[in-house]
């Protein structure tokens, strides 16, 4: 498994196993002396799943690592063990799920990468958008959708939104590769609006299809 994404110094330091007090690597899931499961350490989602941090990840590798780790750490395996071991395996499994769900989805992965870079991509929920071009584009698209009277018209809005999402994700990959984080932040916001549009278009299309008895 890939462990190149180590923060400085973490590899060299050693922690005591909670059970036998023996020396354990901070990355170890199990104590090398007594084999007790260890509590989850404060590492980022990429490190937890043994991946290099970045927007473009190998999804097959993500799946492999996640399911491999989950097999070792699943609480079902610790049903007959001490309370501490049950608790730690639960905590480990929860952290693994959180890491997996975040990295699997390109949008959530992008927001998380921006957060790691010290940027508040999700920003303050009370904040408002003041990018006039984005707002104008969203308003026009939502109005076009509201005016759609057949499921085919709503479907056309959906197809356009999905194409825009696909090209937005490609642009996002490039922005991250070139480390243009301001651009990445703008793209994440635009993608949020596009996802919402696609979601509404899907619902509207289904409603129209139902009422037309299609």
């Amino acid at each position, binding site marked *: 498994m890939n462990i190149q994404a180590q923060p400085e110094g973490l590899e060299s330091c050693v922690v005591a196993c909670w059970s036998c007090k023996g020396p354990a690597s901070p990355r170890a899931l199990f104590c090398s002396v007594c084999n007790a499961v260890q509590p989850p350490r404060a590492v980022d989602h990429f490190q937890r799943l043994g991946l290099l941090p970045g927007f473009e990840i190998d999804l097959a590798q993500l799946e492999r690592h996640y399911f491999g780790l989950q097999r070792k750490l699943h609480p079902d395996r610790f049903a007959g063990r001490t309370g501490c071991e049950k608790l730690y395996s639960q905590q480990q499994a929860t952290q693994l799920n959180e890491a997996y769900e975040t990295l699997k989805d390109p949008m959530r992965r992008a927001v998380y990468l921006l957060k790691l870079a010290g940027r508040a991509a*999700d*920003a303050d*929920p*009370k*904040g*408002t*958008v*003041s990018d*006039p071009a*984005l*707002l*104008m584009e*969203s*308003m026009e698209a*939502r*109005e076009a959708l*509201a005016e759609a009277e057949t499921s085919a018209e709503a479907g056309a809005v959906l197809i356009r939104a999905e194409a825009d999402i696909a090209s937005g994700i490609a642009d996002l990959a490039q922005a991250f590769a070139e480390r243009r984080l301001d651009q990445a932040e703008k793209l994440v*916001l635009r993608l*949020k*609006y596009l*996802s*919402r*549009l696609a979601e*509404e278009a899907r619902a509207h299309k289904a409603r129209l299809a139902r009422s037309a008895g299609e």
Partner: protein
Amino acid sequence: MAYSDKVVDHFENPRNVGSLDKGEASVGTGLVGAPACGDVMRLQIKVSPEGIIEDAKFKTFGCGSAIASSSLVTEWVKGKTLDQAETIKNTDIAQHLALPPVKIHCSVLAEDAIKAAVADYRAKHGDPTIAPADKAAASQGSKP
């Protein structure tokens, strides 16, 4: 989560839905959005030569609270001067509609929308009192 009766009323019978001609000199347009939920809100005012808001329209794509907040604001601003309209606070909106804490941002959006509409109107008329921070929001309405 249950909506208050006032929210339901504005949601089911929204006041002043529609649009005004944003190219007209007497019209100010505010366009704002909430990054967290992908909502978008447009609020427009028509101002008389005496500086009184004589009409207001809105179009909001968002949740019930966002629709109710913008509907309420269009009712409140009619008959007010620009200065009076600018004093509308999100807390007044939230209180009137009994918005729960998770929906407070909808009232913030409505407050920002009316401020942006007033700023747009002022920018069209070259009002020097316009704050630099509002210029970006104000310029949106003057684009083709």
